[in-house]
């Protein structure tokens, strides 16, 4: 299990490659990998988005991410979990979050991946401030 909170741009596919390469004991043991990557779009609620600042409550974020990763591993038979979340200044097309789950079977991989992203989305202490042509604005409510 690895949790990364990053203040710089990251490539989720490279991070997954690197994580998997660092887990030789996983080789041959997993049949299923489910991944979700959230990426900053260049539009939201009718406005162009030029940039976004992601503020977070660092020690609480770390604690929350560790807890949900453990919960996922307790609820489903998964072999490994990688969670990456950006904070700070982001540009459109920057990955915001990456959840990767390795499991023997695909039902567990999908269920744990979905659980993790939903928990990150609804409970992790992050706040988005968007920069649009109309200025900066806090995103306080999001439609799914």
């Amino acid at each position, binding site marked *: 299990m690895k949790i990364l909170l990053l203040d710089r741009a990251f490539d989720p596919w490279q991070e997954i490659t690197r994580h998997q390469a660092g887990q030789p004991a996983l080789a041959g043991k997993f049949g299923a990998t489910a991944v979700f990557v*959230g*990426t900053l779009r260049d539009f939201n609620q009718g406005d162009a988005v030029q940039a976004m600042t*992601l*503020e*977070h*409550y660092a*020690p*609480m974020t770390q*604690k*929350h991410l560790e807890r949900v990763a453990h919960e996922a591993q307790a609820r489903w038979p998964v072999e490994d979990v990688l969670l990456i*979340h950006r904070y700070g200044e982001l540009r459109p097309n920057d990955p*915001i*979050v990456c959840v990767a789950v390795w499991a023997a079977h695909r039902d567990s991989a999908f269920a744990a991946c979905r659980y993790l*992203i*939903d928990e*990150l*989305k*609804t*409970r*992790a*202490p*992050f*706040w*988005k*401030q968007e920069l649009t042509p109309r200025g900066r604005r*806090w*995103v*306080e*409510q*999001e*439609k*799914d």
Partner: protein
Amino acid sequence: MSITVRYFASIREKLGKEQDTIDSKGITCAADAWNRSAGIPLPPNMLVAVNMEYARPDQPVRDGDEVAFFPPVTGGTR
């Protein structure tokens, strides 16, 4: 004999401060810490955390605790 109070996002901007240290005397719950530090009524949608765990405004707090107030979270992606 103090309690740390932290604010995030729009409420941090509105109050113009991100952190406060208040005397713990007379403070029994998270809402007391808000009232002493913020100086305005606690907005109904404000979220509360005590020592990095989500809590209700009436959650007891004591000397040395960290109490945080913040608007609904918008992490992850939609």
